[in-house]
Every structure is written in structure tokens, then in C-alpha cells.
């Protein structure tokens, strides 16, 4: 199994870099994972990741993108509640990048 090296320790990840043990996650590590995606975490990025983590904590699932968009609009205003904004923060898509940085399970489903 591939590893992710961080802070002198080695963590299990899958081929795409998703953490295999959710309890390994911490904020500093998230910033390092983000760098592997070419993403520099700012406050705006954390708004999305924190929402995902809160949602996951409450429902044990990642939200559908349409729900992420709606909730972002409710919490932070319409200029942050749209797909374009999310792709500016996470250029390869919020499902792929933000979930990975948040340490959530890799999204599945029919491709």
C-alpha cells in the first residue's frame, strides 16, 4: 500500500492519496495533502473543508455537490455557493480534492 510521509511518520493512503485511516487526519497534515494537489490552503479553502468535515460528522456521508453548493450559499453568500467558485479553490473538483484534504473516504459511485 502506498504511503504518505508527514512529520517524520508514514501513513497509509491509497493510490490516489486518500487516507486509509481517518483517525490519522490533522490540520497540519491536511495542508501537506493539499500541497500534493497543488492547492495552498487559505481561509476560503478551509471553509469548504470544515463544512465537509462537519457534514460528515453529522451524517456519516459526504454531501452531494449540489448540497455543498446550497449550504455554502446559505453560510457564506451566493458568491461562494456555486460550482465556479469551488473549482477556483479546487481546480480538479471539490469531490476529488476537498474530500481528500478533509480526510474523508474516497467518493464512489458509478463512473
Amino acid at each position, binding site marked *: 500500500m502506498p504511503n504518505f510521509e508527514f512529520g517524520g511518520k508514514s501513513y497509509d493512503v*491509497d493510490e490516489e492519496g*486518500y487516507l486509509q485511516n*481517518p483517525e490519522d487526519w490533522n490540520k497540519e497534515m491536511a495542508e501537506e495533502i493539499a500541497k500534493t494537489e497543488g492547492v495552498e490552503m487559505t481561509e476560503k479553502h478551509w471553509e469548504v473543508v470544515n463544512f465537509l468535515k462537519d457534514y460528515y460528522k453529522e451524517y*456519516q*456521508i459526504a454531501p452531494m455537490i449540489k448540497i455543498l453548493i446550497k449550504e455554502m450559499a446559505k453560510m457564506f453568500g451566493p458568491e461562494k455557493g456555486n460550482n465556479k467558485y469551488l473549482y477556483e479553490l479546487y481546480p480538479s473538483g471539490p469531490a476529488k480534492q476537498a474530500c481528500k484534504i478533509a480526510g474523508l*473516504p*474516497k467518493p*464512489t*459511485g*458509478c463512473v
Partner: protein
Amino acid sequence: MATLEELKARKTDIGPPPVEKFLHSIIKENYGKWRYHEILKSGVLAHTAESGAVIYTVRAASPRLISTDFIRYICDLAEKYCDGYLRFTSRNNVEFLLANKDNIEPLIGELENNGIPVGGTGRSISNIVHTQGWVHCHSAATDASGLVKVVMDELIDHFKNEDLPAKLRIAVACCLNMCGAVHCSDIAILGLHRTVPKIDNERLPKICEIPSTVASCPNAAIRPTFIDGKKSVKIDEDRCMYCGNCYTVCPAMPIADPLNDGVSIWVGGKVANTRQGPSFTKLAIPFLPNNPPRWPEVTSAIKNIVEVYARNGKKYERMAEWIDRIGWTKFFSLTGIQFTKYHIDDFKHAGLSYRRTTQMRS
């Protein structure tokens, strides 16, 4: 690797190129003004426009999974015989579009010398639409490309010749996800799993969403549970229909079982709205073993169904229409296929297929 400049310069959302530049001048000039078509011979079409102009089409087979060598070869032929213009059909055939009638026979000659059969028009078997199988899919219960190859090796004469009552459309899907129009084909070959997914309780809580996994089951057979103090799921095995949807949602529930995975055969589906309209396929053979590399049980079963249909169907009668006329009892007796308990539906709308009249053939 692409440089940052290249990344910035690249355009997104340009969409597919407009089709106009890929159309032969005869097609452009007569776009929307075609008058009629004729099948000159099996695999060769002639479309005549109101202007009197004609475009000829030669339809050839392809195995769908093709190398760039194959593509370059058909491109060479297209340049040699049809000004570089070609297209594909929704059933993976290659169509060469010719302005010059005299080029038809030399083109066919070259194709056939290189092992590429010409046909698939009119009352024949066209190419098989199929899915990825073991070649490229995680949920495959069988291999699609292999099945297509062995079945078409048997049926190739019906591709090359229009010798059937009506067109016959075959499709292969390697699991119930059915990435091909298997559920509406004259004959469908459907890979299936037959055993309950095995739960990896160690990985499941880490990589799967438990509520999504529970919700994925069409029969409510999956419940959340705790195993050794850790969250996981359990399956009510009596309710599992082996659809594999839970595995699609949760990778920690693999369903593949080499000993029990296999193939089922379905008949009588159709897409076109002609005559009695579109219909789903119905179960003919509940299970045949996976017996690669040449699946002899499957090829002989398909050949049998095709030959019985070829002998008994009337002109323009698709498989579904032939069976409707003679009745399912006769279908099973003519083909010698055994009718079993598995043929009787027991899912949601099961009752709709029970016979609710005393009218029946003896």
C-alpha cells in the same frame, strides 16, 4: 510534464469540433435532402439525394477494443478509397463513405483480405455492443470482449449475409450495471454474480460511508451494525439478489466469486418503435458457467436460439415478435431450453407477468 505556461494556455470547455469539417462534400451538399436508400448488397448502402447525387457506404466490423494500428489502417483505406471520410455506427462498426461506386469492390476486397468482415446491414446480425469486462472493469462477472469474439466467430455468416427474418441485435454486459443496451436487445448475454458480497470489516468503516452503503441495496438487505466495537454493516443473506450495487458504493464489499460468477441469456428485447414498439429482454437461460477462453456453453446456446429463430420467424419479425406470435411455451419447447422457477419474476412488479386469463396455447 506540461509546463505551467502550457497549463495556463490550454483551453477548457471548447467541446467537440463542429461536425461540418468531417463531412464529405456530397454529404454537405445534400445535407437534409436525402430522398431514399437502397441496400445494394449485404454491408453496402446507397443513399440517393433529391439532387440525384449518391453516397455509398461500406459497413465493416471492428472488435471495438482496437489499437492505433487498426485506426491508422482504416484511415489509410479511407484515404485510398473515400477521400479520407469515414464514420462509426453506434454498434462499433466502421462505415466508409464513398463517392465513387467503382471503389466499393476493391475496398471490400482489401478489408476481407485483412480479416475485417463487411456486412451488418438489413436483416442480419450487426456488431455486438458490449462493455469492458475483465479488460477494464472492477465489477465484471465475466469478460465481454471474449464473449463477443467467440459468439461472433459462430455467427459471422449472419453478419455477412442478410439471411434472418429481421435484424438481430445482440448485446453483452458483464454485470447488472449494464453499460450497454442489453436490456432491450433481441439477445442479451449478461454476466452475473450469484453469491453474497464478502464484507471486509477491517477496511469498511475506514473507506466506506455506512449510510450510503445501507441505502444502496434495492432490497433493504443491508443494515448497520457493530463488529468488535467498530461500525460496519451486515447483510441479510436471504434478501441479497447479488446486484453488486453495494460494491459500487463501498469497495470493502467485493462480490466477485470465480467459482460462481457466470452468464445468463435473455431474449426478445427491442429498441425501435416499429410495429409493436420497444420492449425489455426476458430471461431464457438463468445461468451458464464462465468457461473461458471460448465459453462453449454460451456459444452453443446462442447459436441454437438464433438458428431456431432463423427457421421459424417470419419476414420482418424481430425475436420479440416471433415469440409473441408462437408464445413462450413454444419458444421453450422449440429451443429445448428448460423452464424453471428462476424464470418467474419475484421482484417488485412480479405479478404483472403472471398469466391472468385461461387463454393459452396448449
